[in-house]
């Protein structure tokens, strides 16, 4: 082995080692110093960095706040509520849900015809009834009151026997007046139907049950 060459190697390694040790020490020292901000130049630099950084952070906060606000006021939320309200209203109207409210309750006790019951429903609708039920069954647009083969009456397929109890939700005074007016429906019934006793009372709280779901359209499609 060449003694000169190995001496140069050792010297170089020692030199490098020394350099690295010192560099490490210096870095460590600089960080400690920076933390302590012991020197004007370093401190000023650090402060300006922090101020600048915090400004950027504040801008980010403002940006996120703005996004949040736009989400909060998003039309989605408002539209959703409007649509939910409208859906609820439609369901109340077409009998998809049970409804409650003031109105009238009445009884037709005795023999009646299919046309008599049509007249009754028609009169209640005409007087502004918002929901109608006959013998505990909700009457909807497509409800059918029809004669059965044995002469009895069916309301939406279910046999309806007297006494026929009807309820209607709406303005109680208007509904009552429409039924009781002179020459009105109940007057005609009680005068011209043998053995038929009629009565009607206002009620603060009438419950009209939901109608069974009406089937899907098979022949009709929206004409849009």
């Amino acid at each position, binding site marked *: 082995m060449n003694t000169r060459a190995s001496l140069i190697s050792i010297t170089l390694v020692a*030199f490098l080692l*020394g*350099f690295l*040790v*010192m*560099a490490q020490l210096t870095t460590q*020292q600089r960080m400690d110093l920076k933390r302590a*901000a*012991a020197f*004007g130049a*370093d*401190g000023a630099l650090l*402060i300006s960095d*922090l101020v600048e950084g*915090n400004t950027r*952070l*504040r801008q*980010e906060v403002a940006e*996120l*706040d703005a*996004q*949040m606000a736009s*989400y909060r006021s998003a039309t*989605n939320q408002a*539209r*959703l509520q409007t*649509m*939910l309200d*409208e859906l609820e209203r*439609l*369901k*109340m*109207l*077409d009998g998809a*849900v049970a*409804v*409650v*409210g003031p*109105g009238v309750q009445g009884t037709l006790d005795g023999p009646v015809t299919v*046309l008599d019951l049509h*007249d009754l429903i028609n009169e209640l*609708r005409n007087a502004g009834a*918002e*929901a109608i039920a006959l013998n505990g069954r909700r009457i*909807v*647009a*497509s409800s*059918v009151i*029809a004669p059965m*083969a044995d002469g009895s009456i069916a309301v939406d397929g279910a046999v309806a026997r007297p006494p026929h109890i009807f309820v209607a939700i*709406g*303005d109680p005074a208007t509904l009552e007046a429409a039924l009781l007016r002179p020459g009105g429906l109940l007057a005609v019934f009680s005068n011209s139907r043998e053995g038929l006793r009629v009565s009607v009372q206002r009620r603060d709280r009438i*419950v009209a049950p939901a109608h069974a779901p009406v089937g899907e*359209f*098979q*022949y*009709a*499609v*929206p*004409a849009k």
Partner: protein
Amino acid sequence: MVIGLALAWQLKGPRASPPVGYAPGDPRDRSVRTIEQLEAEQAALKAEIGRLRTDLANYQAHAAAETDRLQRLNADLDAQRAAAGLTAMRGPGIVVSLDDSGARNISTSPDPNAFLVHDYDLRDVINVLWLAGAEAIAVNDERVVGNTSAYCVGSTVMVNTTRLSPPYVVRAIGEPASLAETLRNPSYLTALRQKVERYGIKFQVAPAPKLTLPAYTGGFSVRHCSSQ
């Protein structure tokens, strides 16, 4: 090694000079406090950004779910509107025409009303059409909906509080053959059939391959109702 140490010592420059002790109240003390305040502010801002990002992510997930919900809700609304008669509908069906009698002896008849089409005739026809499976019905251009009433005012019939004049044309969408068959069933429309035979009331039924019924355009009131 010593040379290396010395060289590195030289290279590190003036910035590495040690902090020779300074007195309290020194300007450097103030800058330490400033830095501490700024660092505290930075930590608070970062915490706030973290919180906001989490909130936003939650909100976006919620909004995405709401968009799904909006779409489903829209479909529900379309279905309910169609069911309530608020949508114009087309399809095959049947056309029923009703007209007053053309008989000339109306004034001498014991009951002139027997020669006219009445509200109850229309109601009976509508009822039988629903029974036959009609999916949508209109009288002239008035769609029959949940609050539709038909009543006579003088010699005309009001439907949806709109005055209609004869002939009354009832159009129904549904299976044409079964609609026609139910209308022919002698168990139904007995009063109308008698008037057709005795007094010449006009009652005609014709299948229609393609009908378009208008949407209901009247009002709906839900002032007294609320859902349970």
